[in-house]
């Protein structure tokens, strides 16, 4: 009896493991319109409103408790604020938050004026979530397939290339940030953009690197690298990607060791632009 229970238990686990491996294989081999993408899309459509409802309900409760915890300090702060409210009204336009958002929108406008992007249609999106998983560097934006956003499209904002759409649902999309370990961007730099490299993300805790640059290539600290836009590139040409922070040539190395930081301020992504441009198949 105990033996048959044990073998049934083992069989259940084996079936579940095989099923999981099959699902992973289907997911990894497919692209945009595969079964798993469709299932995720439907689930996202059902789950998103639920999640928003919970956020809408919990936000005031969270604010209430935050207010209750800091009641004393809030009261004195309130009195100070009342005294200075007139002056603050005049300076409202200089409010740090608004300035920050204005600055981000201005950066978006500057990016839109880049020769490479100005000719392409873009969709401005607001960031809903920063990183749903501890294992990937992604953001979720409030624009999806219904707005023309599809997998593979570049996302710009906050001063440069932000990343690329990796999942697109009806009204939302997931963007892989340029510093994610899975991100690789073909770039060019130097006078006449004659040199090329690949900018690799190294995860949130490490600086990005620029690889495949031969030793003694003329390159200086602070140099900006732009998307190369070669044939079959994943990004249109001329979008600022990263700035060189250090260059080091090791003896006998086949390439330069180059550390770069993203041009886009990835911690300030309230608004981004999705460039409605799809990589060549």
């Amino acid at each position: 009896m105990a033996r048959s229970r044990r073998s049934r238990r083992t069989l259940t686990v084996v079936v579940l493991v095989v099923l999981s491996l099959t699902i992973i294989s289907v997911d990894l081999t497919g692209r945009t319109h595969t079964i798993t993408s469709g299932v995720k899309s439907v689930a996202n459509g059902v789950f998103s409103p639920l999640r928003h409802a919970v956020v809408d309900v919990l936000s005031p409760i969270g604010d209430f408790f935050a207010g209750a915890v800091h009641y004393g300090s809030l009261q004195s702060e309130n009195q100070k604020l009342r005294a200075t409210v007139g002056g603050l009204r005049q300076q409202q336009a200089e409010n740090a938050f608004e300035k920050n958002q204005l600055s981000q929108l201005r950066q978006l406008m500057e990016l839109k004026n880049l020769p490479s992007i100005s000719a392409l249609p873009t969709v401005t999106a607001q960031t809903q979530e920063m990183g749903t998983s501890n294992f990937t560097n992604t953001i979720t934006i409030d624009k999806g397939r219904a707005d023309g956003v599809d997998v593979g499209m570049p996302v710009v904002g906050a001063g440069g290339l932000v990343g690329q759409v990796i999942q697109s649902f009806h009204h939302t999309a997931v963007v892989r940030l340029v510093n994610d370990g899975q991100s690789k961007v073909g770039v060019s730099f130097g006078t006449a953009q004659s040199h090329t490299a690949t900018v690799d993300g190294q995860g949130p805790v490490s600086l990005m690197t620029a690889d495949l640059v031969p030793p003694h290539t003329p390159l200086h600290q602070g140099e900006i690298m732009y998307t190369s836009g070669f044939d079959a590139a994943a990004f249109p040409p001329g979008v600022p990607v990263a700035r060189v922070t250090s260059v080091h040539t090791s003896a006998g190395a086949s390439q330069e060791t180059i550390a770069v930081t993203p041009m886009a301020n990835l911690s300030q992504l309230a608004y981004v632009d999705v460039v409605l441009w799809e990589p060549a198949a």
Partner: protein
Amino acid sequence: MSGRATIRVALVALLLLLAQSTVILSIRIGGTHPDILWLLPITAALLAGPETGAIVGFWSGLAFDLVLPTPFGLGALVGCILGYSIGAATVAVDKRAVWLKPVAAVVGSVAADMLFSVLGAIFGQQQMVQIDFFSLFAIVAISSAFLVLPVNRLMRWALLVEGNRRTLVSAHSPESGIW
């Protein structure tokens, strides 16, 4: 599991999924947030053994996969292995022991995150091992140790419905401490 128990477990999983993607996601220390979904297979395995732990782990992991940008099915695989392992490892342990749930939660959650990242890298997602593991393990361990008791209560409510009570009684002695 009976049909009613399955519905209850699904409700508990949905509740935790909502909590994970709203409240828990906003609790960030150094960019890392707790992962509470692993507590579902851990508590199910402690309450009803390895088979139920594996089944709950598979389905809750699959639900988790729906909202994650990681490979679809990876959460299901890890959840299934986690549920089975915790159930099998604690089958001979006195379920009334006070230390059992927090220890199982800490060890299980940390092991699950480690397995999740390593398997992810094996399946081609190299970025999954390029993270600050120390912060991740610390945050996941502490949050799991605190949250395992409320999740255990929810799972006990979900699994011990009328139809399922008989199954559990036959599988575990009344002294097992799961009541």
